[in-house]
């Protein structure tokens, strides 16, 4: 899937792995550059000895036969010079080709900038070489022409290097734009400048003297490039820091041979083709070679990176659990990963090239079946808005719900649509099942509540009749009954009363939690006052509300009901004539934690669970007037709002009921 990978820049900091500085190479170059000095110091002369013969002694057109008697040394030195120069030129052009080929793949604009530098320098050096071979002449002195063109070429090189580096730094951000026009412009400018310089040189009749054999600074004009190279050093260091890769590193490293060679020239070369001269030319070859190696290394590196990235991408795609599909601009399937294969039941070969409608039929059911070359009728724009549910079709024809997210990518003028597809049939069926369960549950709940209501309501009617009839029997037969029968009648009536109470409690229980009124919010103190008002607090008993209650605001119902039940419970079950019941509250994040504690008889841990069940009383029914529903009711209400309730108590030490209540219903 080549269209998926991002274009990597040659000088791109977008790459994950910036190569480290090539120290081995660096040391090798240093070694290569300084060895000549050492060797010279040891007496090795880098020139072929011969009596000094000026080139003027060999005017143009000398007979070929006469060239046979030319001192070997002159020929050899000269040939050596030409060889070295042409090597530089060839390497320069090769570097340029390599740079442009890299640009063609990676579209990194800074590359051709560097490449053009080599191009133009190669040109200048070529010119210099031609002059030295006397193929190009001017009216000026030949040896001056040679040295001048050398200096010019060197200066041109370092200036273009500096400009190139500055351009790269300045336009770092714009590296990846399509810049054929910019490159073209740069080429033209450089060419014009080069041409202008060359024309000038050739036309000028008088050139300044360039060699001063007896001075310390033998070739003063070569100071210019030398200084410029030194100036370029921090700039190139900056470039390397901004864009760290082999190319910028090599540009930095190439300063070494350049500076060394210029030093050889400035301080050492008193004559053409002398030792320093030759060493300098040798080092010049190295100075072109270094960036060439840099470009090569960078190409290798970026290729390797790309291979790794592609392998990673490939890995992600194949191992993805989501289906990954990419479509051409007219809806044809280009890529189809194995997960998509599992989802749809096709292998990639079966489906690549087919229209996406094969797998997602509803796409463009309304699109015209028109194939207009070059026109994008596959307007997937609908589907490129975020996540969308659609119906997929498997190989066996089965339709199923899927979730698809498509995005459009434009690469090299062509649109591709990349999609992530998820088979959500399981989630859908789960959701349906869930919804159904909820509906069932709601119905069931409703039924239950209706049942409880009707039961308690309709059961009351005959109960009332029994109550009345037993009363009338007692009234009418009163004197005719003996004590036992009268007692029986009394028991009958009391059981009826109990049943009535139970029914009422059941009715209340069934209705519990239905009166949740989130809007009617009251202050804690107001709540406290209402509760006390509704209760029948016997003398001797105190209900103490903690001041913390005054600071809270909370919906009144059904909290009031809960407090009412708990407090009246506490009062009812108290074993003494007087007592205190405390109500407190604590902030617990999203909940309030309320507590109702009494100093009554307490409840043994054995019963802590049972008391919350329906119809459970701890004392005999005859002793305490209670249906046993109070706490069950409280628990039901508390749980319905999302809180929990528990009791802390031991026998003989009172009881504390603690329950949580959400701050917002």
């Amino acid at each position, binding site marked *: 899937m080549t269209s998926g990978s991002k274009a990597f820049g040659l000088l791109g900091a977008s790459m994950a792995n910036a190569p480290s500085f090539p120290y081995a190479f660096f040391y090798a170059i240093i070694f290569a550059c300084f060895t000549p000095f050492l060797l010279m110091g040891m007496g090795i002369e880098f020139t072929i000895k011969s009596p000094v013969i000026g080139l003027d002694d060999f005017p143009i057109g000398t007979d070929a036969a006469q060239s046979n008697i030319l001192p070997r040394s002159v020929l050899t030195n000269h040939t050596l010079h030409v060889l070295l120069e042409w090597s530089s030129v060839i390497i320069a052009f090769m570097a340029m080709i390599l740079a442009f080929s890299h640009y063609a793949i990676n579209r990194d604009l800074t590359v051709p900038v560097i490449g053009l530098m080599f191009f133009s320098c190669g040109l200048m050096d070529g010119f210099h070489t031609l002059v030295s071979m006397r193929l190009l002449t001017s009216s000026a002195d030949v040896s001056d022409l040679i040295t001048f063109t050398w200096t010019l070429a060197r200066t041109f090189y370092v200036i273009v290097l500096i400009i190139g580096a500055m351009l790269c730094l300045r336009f770092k951000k714009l590296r990846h734009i399509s810049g054929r026009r910019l490159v073209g412009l740069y080429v033209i400018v450089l060419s014009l400048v080069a041409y202008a310089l060359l024309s000038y040189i050739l036309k000028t009749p008088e050139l300044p003297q360039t060699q001063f054999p007896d001075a310390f600074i033998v070739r003063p004009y070569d100071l210019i490039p030398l200084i410029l190279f030194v100036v370029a050093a921090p700039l190139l260091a900056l470039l390397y820091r901004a864009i760290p890769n082999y190319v910028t590193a090599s540009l930095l490293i190439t300063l070494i041979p350049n500076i060394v060679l210029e030093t050889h020239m400035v301080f050492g070369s008193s004559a053409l083709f002398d030792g320093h001269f030759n060493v300098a030319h040798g080092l010049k070859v190295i100075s072109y070679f270094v960036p060439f190696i840099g470009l090569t290394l960078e190409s290798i590196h970026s290729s390797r990176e790309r291979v790794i990235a592609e392998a990673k991408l490939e890995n992600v795609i194949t191992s993805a659990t989501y289906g990954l599909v990419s479509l051409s601009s007219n809806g044809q399937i280009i890529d189809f990963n194995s997960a998509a294969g599992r989802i749809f039941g096709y292998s990639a070969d079966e489906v690549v090239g087919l229209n996406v409608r094969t797998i997602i039929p509803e796409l463009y059911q309304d699109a015209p079946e028109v194939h207009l070359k070059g026109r994008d009728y596959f307007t997937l724009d609908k589907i490129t808005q975020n996540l969308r549910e659609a119906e997929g079709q498997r190989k066996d024809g089965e339709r199923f719900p899927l979730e698809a997210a498509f995005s459009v990518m434009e690469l090299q003028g062509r649109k591709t649509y990349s999609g992530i597809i998820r088979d959500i049939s399981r989630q859908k069926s789960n959701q349906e099942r869930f919804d159904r369960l909820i509906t069932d549950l709601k119905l069931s709940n409703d039924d239950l509540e209706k049942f409880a209501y009707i039961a308690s309501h309709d059961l*009351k*009617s005959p109960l*009332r*009749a029994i*109550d*009345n*009839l037993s*009363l*009338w029997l007692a009234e009418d037969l009163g004197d005719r009954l003996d004590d036992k029968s009268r007692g029986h009648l009394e028991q009958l009536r009391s059981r009826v009363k109990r049943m009535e109470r139970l029914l009422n409690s059941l009715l209340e229980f069934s209705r519990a939690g239905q009166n949740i009124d989130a809007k009617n919010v009251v202050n804690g103190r107001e709540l406290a006052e209402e509760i006390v008002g509704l209760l029948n607090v016997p003398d001797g008993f105190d209900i103490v509300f903690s001041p913390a209650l005054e600071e809270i605001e909370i919906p009144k119902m059904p909290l009031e009901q809960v407090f009412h039940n708990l407090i009246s419970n506490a009062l009812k079950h108290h074993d003494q004539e007087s007592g205190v019941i405390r109500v407190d509250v604590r902030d617990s994040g999203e909940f309030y934690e309320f507590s109702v504690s009494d100093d009554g008889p307490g409840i043994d841990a054995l019963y802590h669970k049972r008391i919350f069940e329906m119809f459970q009383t701890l004392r005999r029914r005859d002793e305490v007037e209670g249906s046993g529903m109070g706490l069950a009711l409280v628990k039901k209400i508390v749980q319905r709002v999302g809180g929990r309730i528990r009791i802390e108590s031991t026998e003989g030490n009172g009881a504390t009921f603690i329950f949580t209540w959400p701050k917002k219903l």
Partner: protein
Amino acid sequence: MSAQPVNILLIEDDDVDAEGVERAFRKNKIANPLFHARDGIEALEMLRGENGHEKLIPPYLFLVDINMPRMNGIEFLREVRADKDLRRTVAFVLTTSKRQEDKMSAYDFNIAGYLLKSKAGNDFMKMIGMLDQYWKIVEFPNE
């Protein structure tokens, strides 16, 4: 003060509840004639003298239960308030239903009061006693 004793038409389907009212009348020594219809339809027959029933003579008032078969209390009230002869009759609702809807509907038909049967024993007596005072003091429209 009316010259004639007011007839009380009790419209109630439950016989025990009906007996309750009778006993209460006896206890309170209420002498007014008490008539008993089992539901709204029978009550209307009695009021109009249909179906073998003798027509009830005004002044009368209704004690209407709500939950009854064939025609319940609210439907009966609707019928009555639509009948030009019966429209002005004083009616009390005497029922077990505590439902808001029932209460509202009943008062929509301009009942004189909504009484709950669930008050047993003494409270019931007092209620009947109150009614007794009511028809002794209040002027009735059908005179």
